[in-house]
């Protein structure tokens, strides 16, 4: 039986203007201590300006076994990319 504190996933915004990015996890009894542990564990060298902690149990992930069905449909839709279209060279700024 586990008596360890629950697991939290840690996300760090490295500087203003950037998204938070997953960096790892910490064990903590509550959100406040999770933030404190995340700070000590993942930002000892000014790695961030903002932290998120999320209970790991609350993360819902896609199934890697189904990655094919999930992501392949995008592969055949190359018309979603700008390079799909032939535009004559003399047309500028497009």
């Amino acid at each position, binding site marked *: 039986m586990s008596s*360890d504190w629950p697991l939290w996933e840690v996300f760090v915004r490295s500087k203003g203007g950037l998204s938070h990015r997953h960096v790892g996890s910490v064990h903590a009894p*509550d959100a406040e201590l999770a933030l404190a542990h995340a700070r000590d564990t993942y930002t000892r060298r000014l790695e961030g300006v903002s932290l998120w902690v999320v209970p790991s149990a609350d993360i819902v992930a896609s199934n890697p*076994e189904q990655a094919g069905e999930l992501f392949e449909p995008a592969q055949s839709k190359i018309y979603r990319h700008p390079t799909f279209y032939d535009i004559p060279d003399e047309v500028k700024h497009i």
Partner: protein
Amino acid sequence: MPFEPEHRRRYIIHMYTTELQKSAKIENLEDPKLLEAFEARVAADEFIEPKDWMPEAYRRTLTRQISQHAHSEIVGMLPEGNWITRAPSLRRKAILLAKVQDEAGHGLYLYCAAETLGTSREQMIEALHSGKAKYSTIFNYPTLTWADIGAIGWLVDGAAIMNQVPLQRTSYGPYARAMVRVCKEESFHQRQGYEIMIALANGTAEQKRMAQDAFNRWWWPSLMMFGPPDENSPNTAQSMRWRIKRETNDELRQKFVDITVPQADFLSLTVPDPQLKWNEEKGGYDFGEIDWEEFYAVVRGEGPVAKERMKARRDAWQDGAWVREAAAVHEEKRRARKAA
């Protein structure tokens, strides 16, 4: 776990069910199609992520390696922690404190990475404290003088860097990412150690003697940090094939000797190996035989301060129990109050 069942089913091809527990056979029990796809992914340098299918032997090998690595970071705080209160200046004390704190961080990154394979941190810590789990032999040597702190940063962290740099490309994603963080932080550890050695090597006769003495004691154990010679390292071939390991023990050891000897020369320290000699042909140093008897004795737990190290770990764990429990109870009460 929503997608547990199908992909973890094992297909028994061989009949010897009594062999189920034997690691060598496990591979044969995996679905050959899944195994083949896995091998191909690894061979193509793809990263394996926690929820991806993986052979049980891969999971087990990694769990062992990452947890041993984590334990080494944690136990590794003890020899240096021994000198925090006695550092010769406030500057050195602040540096050593920050270095030891980094090692705690490394331990935590690594426990996290190992946990993604399905073993809890608590189980791993319990394995360490009961003596079941191993950690690097190097931390079972004592730190007798301040010069040892210099020698550890320079040599022990130096050897760790040599081991860890290739692990940034190890095939298991969480381990590789933890190693990227660790490697970013290790360089400071080695440089602060070398700086201590420079100060001593340029100091009084007594300080020079201390530096040489520490070097003498840490040189061989540092070479042992790369593990047994390739011909006695039965797991190396499999680990290389699965890209868990990217270079062999002997390759890494040779590299370490080649970059460290000139650093010793700069300090005017003598490498404690009469057989050390530059070999023009191979473009590296030849060096003397490592005392593998000593290595295996330390692995068996007979290191000079092995008992002390384990006692310190267990005491810290027990002394901190009330804090862990109090924090958990506090959170429970807060929840109850919120619910009421």
